[in-house]
């Protein structure tokens, strides 16, 4: 099997007259501006709106440059309304950009070339494309016809994916009877039936429970590694990102704020580490710890300090000299916190979020979405 899929790394010779440029996805100065009608409160304002309307230009995507290599798994992170989903929609040709250019596998997405459309897939966690009242299998059959998948390839792919996702027994059930997680797995299956070379995932794990999230992560990881396809993913869940993507692109206010590894974010953004100390029972002079750094929490016998990165070694020495310590761990701050810090640097209106806020915003993500 592996060998067989290995052949799919490159497009079949001859079929493709277009030679790949270096990158599979090339985006240059992409801009998407929406004109939004400013509706005002009140009757008088509404009446005025009849005659003259005020519009506001909203830059959903404000000049993005990006290159993605074949086989990469890239995560788009950003607050709601940052332009992540808009970028994915532009790349899949659903909407036209205001200006700028993009090439995916040599095609301009919004020209909607059928050859292009046969080679990528878009999965949106908040929209479903399967027929609500029919078993997923029927929708898959329709897909087979639309994408002209040879019967044998269709059967094999469906068997393989449904086996991996453990949904074989659900194929004959009407989609409306499935749970959210099962439905998402079906959506994923539908998207992968025609073996796309590029996959766009827009919040694929939104609203799912931890187990379902984990399943989908595992599947994506396995599938991507095996087929070496290129995946762009947006998500609000750091776990998704940490589990799957080596490369992270942070978008806020329609622009790329960071592009690099996940660890790099921590190095670049935060200047602190968390030092966690397990104190001896006799050690009760807790108030003294504030002189080593900011005290994050005191839950005896454990004390957590926030210490400037460059001072860690020095501080630890000082603490060990003056106190009886049983155990020490030095960690980076939680990823969520780092990302939130990064967002707040870009847009001061976003407060530096505490862990509780992040948890709350995860719930929030289910109700709001990107512009």
């Amino acid at each position, binding site marked *: 099997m592996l060998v067989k899929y290995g052949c799919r790394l490159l497009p079949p010779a001859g079929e493709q007259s277009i030679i790949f440029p270096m990158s599979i996805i090339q985006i240059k100065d992409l801009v998407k501006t*929406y004109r939004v009608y400013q509706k005002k409160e009140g009757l008088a304002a509404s009446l005025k709106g009849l005659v003259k309307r005020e519009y506001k230009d909203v830059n959903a995507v404000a000049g993005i440059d990006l290159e993605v290599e074949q086989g990469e798994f890239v995560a788009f992170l950003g607050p709601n309304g940052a332009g992540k*989903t808009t970028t994915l*929609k532009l790349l*899949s*040709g*659903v*909407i*036209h950009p205001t200006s700028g250019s993009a090439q995916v596998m040599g095609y301009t997405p*919004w020209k*909607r070339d*059928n*050859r*292009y*459309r*046969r080679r990528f*897939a*878009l999965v*949106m966690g*908040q*929209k479903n*494309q399967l027929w609500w009242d029919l078993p997923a299998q029927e929708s898959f059959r329709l897909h087979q016809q*639309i*994408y*002209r998948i040879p019967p044998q390839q269709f059967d094999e792919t469906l068997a393989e994916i449904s086996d991996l996702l453990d949904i074989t027994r659900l194929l004959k059930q009407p989609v409306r009877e499935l749970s959210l997680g099962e439905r998402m797995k079906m959506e994923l299956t539908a998207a992968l039936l025609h073996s796309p070379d590029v996959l766009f995932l827009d919040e694929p794990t939104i609203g799912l429970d931890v187990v379902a999230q984990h399943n989908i992560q595992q599947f994506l990881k396995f599938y991507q590694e095996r087929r070496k396809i290129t995946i762009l993913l947006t998500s609000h869940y750091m776990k998704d990102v940490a589990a799957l993507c080596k490369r992270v692109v942070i978008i806020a206010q329609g622009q790329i704020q960071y592009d690099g590894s996940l660890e790099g974010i921590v190095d670049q953004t935060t200047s602190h580490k968390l030092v966690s100390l397990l104190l001896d029972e006799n050690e009760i002079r807790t108030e003294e710890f504030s002189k080593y750094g900011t005290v994050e929490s005191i839950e005896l016998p454990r004390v957590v300090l926030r210490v400037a990165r460059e001072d860690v070694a020095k501080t630890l020495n000082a603490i060990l000299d003056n106190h009886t310590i049983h155990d020490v761990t030095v960690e980076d701050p939680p990823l969520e916190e780092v990302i939130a810090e990064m967002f707040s640097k870009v847009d001061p209106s976003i407060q530096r979020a505490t862990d509780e806020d992040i948890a709350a915003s995860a719930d929030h993500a289910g109700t709001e*979405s*990107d*512009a």
Partner: protein
Amino acid sequence: MNIGFYIIIFQHTNMIGEEGGWKQYEFFVFLATTWFINSIVQTFFMPNAQEFSELIRTGNLDFALLKPIDTQFLISFQKMDWASLSNFVMAVALLVYSLINLTSQPENPLTLHWSMFLLYPFFIFCGVMIMYSIMVALASTSIWLGRNQTLYNCWFYITNFSRYPMEIYQRGWGWALWGAFTFVIPVLVVVNIPARIMAQPLRPVGHQWYWPFIALAATLISVLSSRFVFKKALGAYRSASS
């Protein structure tokens, strides 16, 4: 439905329009033609046009745009409303009934020619295509207007003009309407041409011979321009979130 209305009208007059106007059974052929075209449009295209507006509103048009087949084709044939086809059966009945009456009337009985049975369905098909084009163009506007609840009304009011013989507009300022609905939005040729071929084949009104060609040209131009509008509209699609 509105046949009742016309039965009552024909209680009070024997013809609609002056010289060369439509007598009762000729007009019933006209009505039957209207029914044919409407039933086909309502069965195959109306549910899809409504679905299209819904797809735009919910943003689910995204998925149609992703599919590697022609988007207009995909959204034009997703649904069918078989119940509307019952009107087709009614139309057949009315047509047969009217033709029997027309061929057996003592004064100028209608003689049927085999070519009529080829041309009639063909121009009904042309009429359906014109209606379909107008519907596609109208449905596309919901991309620009954001919401188009009055889509159905709009459609009804425009096509309403097609349900009457075109001669009734040919007076005074009606000529402007006649011109607009023949050459700009060609709804008047939709029913008039096939109905005339069937009901009044030998009655020369104006230079009748060129009307079928006008109908053909109108069909082609409508189909092409509606496709143009559709493509243009897709370019402006905003994709509602979730």
